C-alpha cells in the first residue's frame, strides 16, 4: 500500500508521480520499487514519455492508408514515394529547455529530430522549424529569438542538412513559454527502413556516439511535464549541450552500419536517455534486456547508476547487433571516430535488469514499465468566455494604405529573410525552391521528381476556435503545397498546449485533435507520428493552443514547374481563386487593432477548399500558372503586396468591394495567381475564380469600391523589411 507520508510515496511525489500512480506501481510490482526503479518509473510514466493525457485522443487519428510505410510508434513515420523510396518525417518540440537556455535548447531540439530520422535508417535531407515568441517589443522575445535562431543554425548548418522552411509568430501568450518545434525529413530505400524493436536473445546492445554525462538529468519528467513557477527554479536542471560535430559523425556512422547490414535494431537516445530507450526497444521486440551501467563510457567518473540511466547526454544511439558481427560494427564506429561500447544483452526474460557489474540494481517487467502507466481521460469543458486577454492595440489608422503598410511591417507578416539567411538552405544540392521563393519548400529527388513540405499553425485562430482553427492549420499547409504543385502525402504534428488537467485546456486539446482527424480523413492522408508538448503555461496563463502541422507533398514529376509566389512578368493577368469569404474576426488586422478574440470561427466547407487546392495544384503542374500564392495573414491586399515584393513587379488591381474585410480579412482556401489571361480563364470552371488585375508597373495599385491604395515597390519593400529591426 502506498501511504502519503511514507518514504516511498514521498519520493515518488518528489519525482513527479502522483500518489495513485505510486500505489499502482507498488501493486503491479507487489513491492516498493527501489530508488533506481522509482527513478525509471518517474521518467517512463511522465507525460513526456507516456503521453498519458493525450494517448487516448491520439488513438482517434487516422494513421493508415496505402501510402504509409511506417506509422506512429517508431522513431519517425514514413510514407511511400514510389520507385522504392520512402520519406521519413517528424516534428518535435523542445519548448521547455529552450525557455531556459534558448541556444542549446533549440540546437539540441534540432539534434534530437535529426536522430529520430536517421534512427529509422533515413538520411536527413531537410529541416524546418516552427517558432513562437511573446510580443515583438519585449526584451525577452528578442533574446529568445536571437539565441534560438542561432542555435538552430548552429546545429543544422554544421551537420550539412538544409533548413528549408519554417514559420514564426509573435503573440503575448508565448511570452513565458516560447515554442521551438523542429521538423526533419529523411530519404530511405523502403526496404532499408529499420525499426527499434530489439530482437534475438543473445544479441548485444551497443551504445555508440558521445559518452554519458550529467547533462539534462530529469529533463523529460521535470521540464516537460509540469508547469514551472518562480518557486521551482531549483527544479530546472542543466539543459543538454549539443555537439553537431559529434552528431554528424554519429549520423554517417549509423547510416554506414545500416548500409552494411550490421544492425538488428536502432534507437536514438532522447528524453530520459537509456531509461526510455531500453524498455521501448524491449517492449516492441517482446524481449528482455540486461543493461550494465558499469560498461557505459562516462564523462564524469563518479556518476551514480541512476544518473547513468536517466542522463540525457546528446548524440548517442543504441544498436542491437549479432555477436558475430560485433567486430565489423565496432570497426565502422572506429572509422567514424565514434565511441562505442557493449552495454547490454537481449534476453528472453521479459525483464529490464539494471546491473552494475555483478550487482542487480533493479529488475522490472517490461510490460509494467512500458504499458503499466495509466492513461487518463480528460475532462474537457468549453469555457463560457474567451480566456485570452485582448492583444495590445498598435494601429489607430482607418486608412487602407496605412493599414496595408502596418500589416506588411507587423511582426507576424514582415520579411523573414533576416531569419532564414542564418540557415544553410542549399546543402545537398536538392533545394529547388528556397525560403521566400514559394509558399512551400521544394526538394529534388535523385533524378525522379521532387517533394514539397510546409509547416503551419496560426495559434491565435486556434485560440479563437480550437476545432476550426486546427482545420485551418491543416488546410493552410495543403494550400502552401498546392501553390508549388504538390499533393499531400502524410502529416506529422506537434501539439503544444497548456495544462490538460484543466478543463478548458482539455477542451482545446480534444477539439483540436478531433479537427486533425477530420481534416486528415477528408484529405485521405495518414498522421504518421508526432509529438505532444503540454503544460506550456505560466503565471499569466496558457499559451495559445498550437497544433503545429507539418505536411509533406509529392507528385511533382517536373520540379522545374514548381510554383513561385512572386509575379513573373508584366502583362500577366492576376486572378483570385477560391470561395472568397474573408472575415476580420481573429485576423491579423483585428490583432493590430487590439480587438478581443472571438469564441468561434466560421465553419469551412472542407470539400470546397480541397477542390480549389486541386485546381491550383493541377494548374501549377500543367505550367498554366506563372505564380501562385495562398491568401493568409493580412488577407488579399497583403498577399498581393507579397507577390509584388517577391517579384520586384507592380500590379494594378480592381475589386468591387473595398471594405476592410475584403482587403484584409482572412479566409481558408483562396489564392492569388498570375499567368496568361486566356490560360487563367480556362481554370476548372467548378472552382470560383475571377481576373482582378494585371502585373506591371513599379507600384501596387488597388481600386476597390471607394477605396484606393497606391504604393510604390520601394515603399512596400521598406515596410516589409521593417522587421529587420526585430532581428538585430
Amino acid at each position, binding site marked *: 500500500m502506498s501511504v502519503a507520508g511514507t518514504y516511498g510515496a514521498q519520493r515518488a511525489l518528489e519525482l513527479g508521480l502522483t500518489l495513485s500512480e505510486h500505489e499502482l506501481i507498488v501493486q503491479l510490482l507487489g513491492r516498493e520499487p527501489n530508488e533506481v526503479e522509482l527513478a525509471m518509473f518517474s521518467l517512463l510514466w511522465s507525460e513526456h514519455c507516456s503521453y498519458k493525457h493525450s494517448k487516448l485522443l491520439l488513438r482517434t487519428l487516422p494513421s493508415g492508408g496505402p501510402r504509409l510505410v511506417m506509422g506512429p510508434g517508431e522513431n519517425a513515420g514514413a510514407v511511400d514515394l514510389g520507385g522504392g523510396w520512402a520519406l521519413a518525417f517528424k516534428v518535435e518540440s523542445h519548448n521547455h529547455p529552450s525557455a531556459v537556455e534558448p541556444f542549446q535548447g533549440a540546437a539540441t531540439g534540432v539534434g534530437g529530430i535529426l536522430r529520430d530520422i536517421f534512427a529509422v535508417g533515413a538520411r536527413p535531407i531537410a529541416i524546418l522549424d516552427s517558432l513562437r515568441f511573446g510580443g515583438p517589443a519585449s526584451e525577452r522575445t528578442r533574446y529568445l529569438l536571437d539565441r534560438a535562431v542561432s542555435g538552430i543554425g548552429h546545429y543544422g548548418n554544421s551537420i550539412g542538412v538544409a533548413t528549408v522552411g519554417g514559420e514564426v509568430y509573435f503573440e503575448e501568450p508565448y511570452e513565458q513559454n516560447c515554442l521551438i518545434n523542429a521538423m526533419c525529413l529523411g530519404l530511405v530505400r523502403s526496404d532499408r527502413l529499420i525499426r527499434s524493436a530489439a530482437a534475438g536473445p543473445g544479441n548485444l546492445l551497443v551504445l555508440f556516439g558521445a559518452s554519458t554525462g550529467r547533462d539534462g538529468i530529469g529533463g523529460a519528467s521535470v521540464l516537460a511535464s509540469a508547469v514551472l513557477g518562480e518557486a521551482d527554479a531549483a527544479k530546472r536542471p542543466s539543459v543538454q549541450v549539443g555537439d553537431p*560535430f559529434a552528431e554528424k559523425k554519429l549520423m554517417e556512422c549509423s547510416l554506414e552500419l545500416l548500409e552494411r547490414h550490421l544492425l538488428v535494431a536502432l534507437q536514438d537516445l532522447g528524453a530520459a536517455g537509456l531509461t526510455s530507450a531500453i524498455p521501448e526497444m524491449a517492449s516492441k521486440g517482446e524481449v528482455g534486456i540486461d543493461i550494465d551501467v558499469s560498461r557505459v563510457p562516462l564523462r564524469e567518473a563518479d556518476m551514480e547508476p541512476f544518473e547513468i540511466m536517466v542522463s540525457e547526454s546528446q548524440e548517442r544511439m543504441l544498436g542491437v547487433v549479432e555477436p558475430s558481427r560485433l567486430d565489423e560494427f565496432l570497426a565502422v564506429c572506429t572509422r*567514424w*571516430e565514434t565511441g562505442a561500447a557493449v552495454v547490454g544483452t537481449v534476453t528472453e526474460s521479459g525483464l529490464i535488469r539494471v546491473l552494475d557489474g555483478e550487482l542487480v540494481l533493479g529488475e522490472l517487467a517490461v510490460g509494467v514499465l512500458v504499458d503499466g502507466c495509466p492513461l487518463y481521460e480528460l475532462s474537457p469543458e468549453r469555457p463560457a468566455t474567451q480566456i485570452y486577454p485582448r492583444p495590445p492595440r498598435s494601429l489607430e489608422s482607418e486608412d487602407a494604405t496605412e493599414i496595408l503598410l502596418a500589416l506588411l511591417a507587423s511582426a507576424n507578416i514582415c520579411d523573414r529573410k533576416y531569419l532564414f539567411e542564418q540557415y544553410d538552405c542549399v546543402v545537398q544540392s536538392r533545394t529547388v525552391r528556397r525560403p521566400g521563393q514559394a509558399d512551400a519548400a521544394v526538394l529534388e529527388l535523385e533524378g525522379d521528381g521532387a517533394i514539397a513540405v510546409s509547416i503551419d499553425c496560426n495559434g491565435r485562430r486556434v485560440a479563437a476556435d480550437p476545432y476550426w482553427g486546427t482545420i485551418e492549420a491543416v488546410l493552410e499547409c495543403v494550400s502552401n503545397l498546392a501553390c508549388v504543385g504538390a499533393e499531400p502525402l502524410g502529416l506529422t504534428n506537434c501539439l503544444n498546449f497548456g495544462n490538460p488537467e484543466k478543463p478548458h485546456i482539455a477542451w482545446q486539446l480534444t477539439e483540436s485533435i478531433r479537427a486533425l482527424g477530420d481534416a486528415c480523413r477528408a484529405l485521405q492522408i495518414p498522421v504518421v507520428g508526432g509529438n505532444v508538448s503540454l503544460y506550456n503555461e505560466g503565471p499569466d496563463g496558457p499559451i495559445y493552443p498550437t497544433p503545429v502541422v507539418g505536411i509533406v507533398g509529392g507528385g511533382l514529376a517536373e520540379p522545374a514547374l514548381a510554383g513561385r509566389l512572386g509575379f513573373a512578368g508584366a502583362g500577366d493577368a492576376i486572378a483570385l481563386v477560391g470561395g472568397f469569404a474573408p472575415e476580420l474576426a481573429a485576423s491579423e488586422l483585428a490583432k493590430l487593432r487590439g480587438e478581443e478574440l472571438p469564441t468561434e470561427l466560421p465553419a469551412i466547407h472542407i470539400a470546397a477548399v480541397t477542390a480549389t487546392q486541386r485546381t491550383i495544384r493541377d494548374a501549377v503542374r500543367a505550367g498554366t500558372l506563372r505564380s501562385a500564392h495562398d491568401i493568409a495573414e493580412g488577407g488579399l491586399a497583403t498577399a498581393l503586396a507579397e507577390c509584388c515584393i517577391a517579384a520586384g513587379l507592380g500590379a494594378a488591381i480592381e475589386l468591387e468591394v473595398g471594405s476592410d474585410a475584403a482587403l484584409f480579412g482572412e479566409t481558408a482556401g483562396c489564392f492569388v495567381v498570375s499567368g496568361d489571361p486566356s490560360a487563367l480563364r480556362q481554370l476548372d470552371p467548378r472552382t470560383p475564380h475571377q481576373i482582378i488585375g494585371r502585373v506591371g508597373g513599379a507600384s501596387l495599385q488597388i481600386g476597390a469600391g471607394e477605396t484606393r491604395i497606391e504604393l510604390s515597390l520601394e515603399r512596400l519593400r521598406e515596410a516589409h523589411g521593417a522587421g529587420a529591426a526585430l532581428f538585430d
Partner: protein
Amino acid sequence: MKFGVVVFPGSCDDVDAQLACARVADVVPLWHADHDLQGVDAVVIPGGFSYGDYLRAGAIARFAPVMTEVIDFAHAGGYVMGICNGFQVCCEAGLLPGALLTNASLRFVCRQVSLEVVNGDTAFTRALLSGATLSIPVKHTTGRYYAPEQELERLEAAGQVVLRYGPGQNPNGALRDIAGVINEQGNVFGLMPHPEHAVDELTGSTDGLGLFASLRDSVGALVGGGR
C-alpha cells in the same frame, strides 16, 4: 581527368562538390585518414565544418593525414581548389595568403551573391572572362577575408585577387570585397562562395560550372603538354 574531393569528419558539401566535379570529369573521394591521393589530377577541399571547426575554422583539418599529401601535391604544382571551409584550410596550411575572420555581422549568412571575375586568366577561371558576373551562393560564419594592407596591395598587383563580391554584395565585411584568391604560383585557389551549389539551373544557377570546367581544361592543358 580525375578530381579528388577531400572528406574530413564534419565535411558537409563533399558530396555536392563530387556531384559538381562529376559534371565535367571523373571524381573520387579522398578520405582524411589516408595518405593517398589516388593519382588524382586536381584536389577539391570542400565546404563544411571539418572537425566541428573547433579551435578555429580549418585549424585542425590542416593537420589531417591526407593534408600532408595535398600540401606536397600543391608544392609540386598540382591544382588545389578550396571552397569555403576548404579555403580556410588552405589558409591555415599556408597554401594561400591571408586569413578568414568571423563575419562582420557575427552571424552565419546564406545568400545568393553576385561576384565579379577579377582575373579571368587563371587556371581556375580560364573558361570565364575578366569582368564577368557570376551568381553563386555563400554560406558561412567565418568568411571575412583579411590580409595586411601591404599584402593586399601586392595581391592586387600580382592579379591574385580572382573573385570579388559585386557592388553592395559583400556578405561578410571582407577587405576590398575579396571573395577568392590564388597563390603566387597560380595552382592553389580558395573562395568563400560555393560554385558546387551553382551547377544546375533547377537549384539556382549554373554560374559555378565555369570554375570546374576551367580546372578540367587547365589539367588537360598540362597533360596535353606532356607534364
